């Protein structure tokens, strides 16, 4: 058999893998992406079926440990109060993401300078701005220009409807005199580049049967593949290999039949997310790199950041959207920037939530005792169904070295590759921020007319955002990759996923992940002649 040898090997076909593939496609190099999961079919997404909530809790669930697809890998998360939510397949987490699509703020890249915590990024907002624009164009972002919480940014489609829930919450924020704005969303509100517009199916986090939500399998990937990038599914990478010069030489992976395969590559790009990437790097040991690849700083797998979330929901006498309409609605960044009088540094975004679906209201209500089972069930249930809405607070998580991804000594995936193990504690700063956010959200919901409010933190299954475990920086002792994503130790190894984040900001990360991947691709293209110098 001819040797399988390519110019560029991308590992992982999620948000960042898709964007970097698209970004490099015009070079006409031989680019191959290996992805452990499958292509998804819109006709199989849960909202095609009456039992969509059951399916959403089963094969389309957030947790790889419960979903139980053979394309998943298990994660030991016993040591973390927040559990991972992901999806393994073409599109990665964007298959299930809600599509909240905020940009970082300029201050997010300068937290050390501004607040004396964590580190500054080696790049700034202006560096990423053109790549945000490019990513937005491929993604198709809806929203409204003029948000005073942000520098000016374009909006390509009108915002999602306020709906009944957004109207109630907007009134609450207005009563407090606080900021709110329609959310930037990766959901098309008009037909966009062959995608249909949103029809308010209301279950975005189970996969969009309408194709209105910009998961990267239907945005970046078709462009990249038309330009010649090859995407191989059911290929699970075990390790990145190195040659005698300490350069990455390719990867060893298992194909769909579980057979071990080798692929050679001149450049290797990791795009497996903030848990998957450190896992594979730590598993890529050799005599030259006994502690894992690109790990001379010892920082691979360290500084794991989630966004701790609080949830705050109110019961309203008026009817709300409930399960009708996308999750994305309005947001508030009144408390985004640091104000030390609040008792914590950095801040958070409130993201409005239109409501809950019928099964989840019944299950959560009956299990918590809020909705009785037996006599009296129907009466109370009817006061809840289509009458609950509220918000979540997505809090900036600061990097701490003791929050880690390591290799589990016992747990393995179906191909025998060691599983990742998480160790994470919620910091005091996060706890204070979460509690503050709950108090403020309660004020908003009460001002909006809520008759009762329920809240809690953290959202246990809310490890949606995986960041920081191979951070970027200019100092090889303090970072894993340089300011354009190239490994300090291995000059033909790049990382483009959320692992490279220096800090997490108080917003969802995917718009920034995609912009970063495009920026890395662009820098590679600019430097093709001396890429490894």
């Amino acid at each position, binding site marked *: 058999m001819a040797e399988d040898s390519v110019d560029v090997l991308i590992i992982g076909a999620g948000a960042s893998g898709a964007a970097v593939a698209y970004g490099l496609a015009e070079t006409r190099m031989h680019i191959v992406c290996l992805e452990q999961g499958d292509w998804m079919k819109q006709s199989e997404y849960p909202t095609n*079926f009456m039992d969509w*909530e059951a399916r959403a809790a089963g094969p389309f669930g957030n947790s790889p440990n419960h979903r139980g697809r053979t394309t998943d890998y298990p994660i030991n998360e016993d040591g973390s109060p927040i559990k991972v939510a992901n999806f393994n397949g073409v599109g990665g987490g964007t298959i299930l993401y809600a599509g909240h699509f905020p940009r970082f703020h300029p201050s997010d890249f300068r937290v050390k300078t501004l607040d004396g915590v964590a580190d500054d990024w080696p790049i700034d907002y202006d560096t990423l701005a053109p790549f945000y624009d490019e990513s937005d164009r491929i993604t198709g972002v809806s929203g409204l220009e003029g948000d005073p919480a942000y520098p000016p940014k374009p909006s390509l489609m009108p915002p999602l409807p306020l709906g009944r829930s957004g109207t109630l919450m907007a009134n609450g924020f207005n009563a407090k005199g606080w900021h709110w704005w329609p959310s930037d969303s990766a959901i098309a509100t008009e037909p966009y580049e062959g995608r249909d517009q949103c029809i308010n199916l209301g279950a975005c986090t189970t996969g969009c049967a309408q194709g209105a939500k910009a998961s990267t399998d239907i945005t970046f990937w078709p462009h990249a593949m038309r330009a010649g990038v090859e995407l191989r599914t059911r290929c699970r990478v075990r390790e990145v290999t190195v040659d005698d010069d300490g350069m990455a030489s390719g990867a060893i992976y298992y194909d769909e039949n579980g057979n071990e395969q080798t692929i050679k590559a001149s450049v290797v790009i990791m795009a497996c997310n903030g848990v998957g990437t450190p896992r594979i790097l730590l598993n890529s040991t050799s005599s030259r790199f006994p502690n894992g690849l690109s790990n001379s700083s010892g920082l691979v797998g360290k500084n794991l950041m989630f966004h701790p979330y609080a949830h705050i929901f109110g019961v309203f006498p008026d009817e709300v959207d409930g399960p009708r309409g996308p999750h994305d609605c309005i947001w508030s960044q009144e408390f985004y920037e640091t104000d030390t009088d609040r008792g914590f540094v950095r801040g958070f975004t409130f993201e409005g939530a239109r409501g809950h679906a*019928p099964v989840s209201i019944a299950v959560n209500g009956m299990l918590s005792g809020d909705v009785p089972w037996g006599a009296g069930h129907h009466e109370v249930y009817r006061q809840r169904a289509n009458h609950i809405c509220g918000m979540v607070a997505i809090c900036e998580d600061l990097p701490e070295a003791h929050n880690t991804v390591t290799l589990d000594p016992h747990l393995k995936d179906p191909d025998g590759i060691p599983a990742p193990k998480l160790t994470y504690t919620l910091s005091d700063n996060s706890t204070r921020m979460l509690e503050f956010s709950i108090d403020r959200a309660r004020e908003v919901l009460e001002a909006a007319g809520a008759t009762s409010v329920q809240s809690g933190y953290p959202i246990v299954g809310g490890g949606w955002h995986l960041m920081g475990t191979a951070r970027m920086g200019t100092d090889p002792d303090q970072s894993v990759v340089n300011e354009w994503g190239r490994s300090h130790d291995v000059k033909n190894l790049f990382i483009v996923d959320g692992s490279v984040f220096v800090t997490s900001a108080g917003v969802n990360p995917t718009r920034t992940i995609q912009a970063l991947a495009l920026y890395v691709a662009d820098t590679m293209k600019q430097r093709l002649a001396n890429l490894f110098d």
Partner: protein
Amino acid sequence: MNDTISSDSNVTESDLVALRAVAGTIIPASEQYQIPGADDEAIFRTIVSLVREQGDGTLKTQLAELQSRCQERHGCSLQKLSPTDRTSELKDSSNARFLYRMIHLTANAYYQDGRVLASIDLKEEPPFPGGHEVPQGDWSLLDPVRKREPFYTKV
């Protein structure tokens, strides 16, 4: 009901009668709202298929334990108890895990039934392809925010 339980299933006909009684106890029919209970034939059939999909071993064991406690305390099976006694038996903390599972199964089956969904103003069909109407809302609500000066930190 036999056709909805796989042939290698552990669940017997008498187990099904008991599970059906439990489902109807958790979500009873309502004359006021003109809706069936979760012991309705079609809804219970969904419960049974969920049990089959998820595996019935643990449920079977939990039910057997509950039944033997019923025999000890009341001298009859769960399904023969009055609704009030059945309710208090289910509320006994020793049945917590069984109740937890049955609440999940019952709610999942009940709130995907078209008749039930229609009674709470939701469509009697899957969300796709029909979708939902969501009112645009009044964007003039945004006027006070539009008047604000930019307040992000400039660096």
